[in-house]
């Protein structure tokens, strides 16, 4: 459904994405993961036809994004990181406008369906400017869905949503995928990817560093430790036989990497430093921490 080949985008001397290749099949839910500045939003905007690539090609539903952008935009629904909403318009009026722009024939029916899908029927008559951030995000989602797109591009869709709304958003994405809609969602929230996606594509410094099904990513050989006294703990853990490296990411938590199951040995070594927590992170979390560490 989506085929990106050698996609590159530069802004002056800065390269945002470089030689990106990936394919997304019909009905797949794929997470585009990466730290801030990895090139996720640039990639999404190119796919949505809002931005031209410097080189490379993208085919969506058999149409070339650059040669035939109108045909592509008819089948793509896009929710940018900052939803494009007119504060002076009512929710239903705004959705009618979005439906008209997308050439929908039965606008009233399309608006009613989008209101239902995004769970914003209760605010249909309210001006968008007076809605909470969560509702605004959902109205943006409704606008992306109003023309029943075959491909849905969601850039940080859970931003601004409370935990209940996040769960609802995940359920909606899964429902849409079950109805054969292809979803590509970009996020830097690991839980979003782990709970919603079939596959993950990780970007770092504008390049694809991982393209894998989620169940194929393992976290073996990594132990996450949280201790009360950090001083000296890293050195003690590094001395444990089998340990290759010890990272200390943001909150003082230590990530111990090595060969085999290290949990028992690491627990013994960490005990003198007031061991508070010990576990195995998911492969995705480990990957994300390693990427962040490369940036530090």
């Amino acid at each position: 459904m989506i085929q990106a080949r050698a996609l590159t985008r530069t802004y002056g001397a800065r390269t945002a994405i470089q030689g990106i290749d990936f394919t997304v099949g019909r009905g797949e839910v794929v997470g585009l993961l990466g730290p801030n500045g990895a090139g996720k939003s640039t990639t999404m905007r190119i796919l949505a036809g809002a931005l031209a690539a410097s080189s490379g090609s993208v085919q969506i539903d058999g149409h070339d994004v650059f040669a035939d952008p109108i045909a592509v935009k008819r089948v793509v629904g896009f929710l940018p990181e900052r939803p494009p909403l007119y504060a002076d318009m009512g929710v239903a009026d705004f959705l009618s406008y979005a439906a008209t722009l997308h050439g929908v024939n039965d606008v009233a029916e399309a608006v009613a369906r989008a209101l239902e899908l995004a769970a914003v029927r209760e605010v249909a008559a309210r001006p968008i400017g007076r809605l909470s951030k969560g509702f605004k995000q959902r109205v943006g989602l409704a606008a992306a869905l109003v023309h029943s797109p075959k491909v849905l591009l969601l850039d940080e869709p859970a931003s601004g949503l409370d935990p209940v709304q996040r769960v609802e958003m995940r359920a909606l994405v899964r429902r849409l995928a079950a109805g054969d809609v292809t979803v590509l969602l970009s996020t830097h929230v690991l839980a979003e990817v782990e709970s919603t996606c079939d596959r993950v594509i990780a970007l770092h410094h504008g390049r694809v560093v991982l393209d894998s099904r989620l169940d194929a990513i393992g976290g073996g050989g990594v132990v996450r430790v949280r201790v009360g006294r950090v001083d000296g703990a890293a050195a003690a853990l590094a001395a444990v036989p089998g340990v290759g490296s010890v990272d200390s990411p943001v909150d003082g938590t230590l990530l111990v990497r090595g060969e085999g199951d290290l949990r028992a040995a690491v627990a013994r070594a960490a005990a003198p430093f007031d061991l508070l927590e010990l576990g195995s992170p998911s492969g995705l979390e480990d990957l994300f921490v390693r990427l962040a560490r490369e940036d530090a």
Partner: protein
Amino acid sequence: MRVVWAIARREVRSLLHTATGWLVLGGFLFLTGAFWLALVDNYLARSGDLAYDPYSDVRMSLVDHLLAPFFGNVAILLLVVCPAVTMRSFADEQRLGTLDLLATSPVSAWQIALGKLGGAWAFVGLLLACTLWMPLALTPFGALDPGALAGGYLSLVLLGAALCALGTLASALTDQALVALVLSFSVTLVLWIVGWLNPDPTSFVSQISIATHVGDMARGALRASDVAYFVLLSGWCVVALRQRVASWRYA
């Protein structure tokens, strides 16, 4: 066409939802009304004086002493009104990120440009329509030259269309409405006063001046060259606007 209409309608609606739109509407109607009353008052006073002058056989024409100065005043108001109406057109969309909706919808750059411009034209058309009652209120008191009236309004419509096109183009060049206002007003002002550099009406600077082409039209004298001037100015701005909209993907 449906899309162009939808964009234009949203544009008018947006103007009517902002203080700027209502300030422009109210200010324009107040000032045109004040100009009209002052002109009528002046006309009555002078024609009254002439009526009692036993040596005078001069008759004051409505066209020369009322309509032409009125249209001239309205034309000057449009120099400020059109940049104010169009300043937010694209600048706000860029600043607030709402341009993404248009950029990711299956609409062409032409449709976006014409829709935005159509909204501005409709709003300025509404402003001009609101002044129609003033000259029409004179019909019970004397024969009003319909040709002069139609010519005067056509000149205002053509001027308004060109200035809106210029203003919308300026709005597409920046994400700050105030910058768009200053830019379009400055260009408009230069195009107005450039003719003062050479009083010869056949000179190049006179021919590119808005004032040269408005002058005779305000008296109802329609010349093909005047109409062509405004059509070409509007057309050039529309084409440049379309190019600008199409270029956003490459920014």
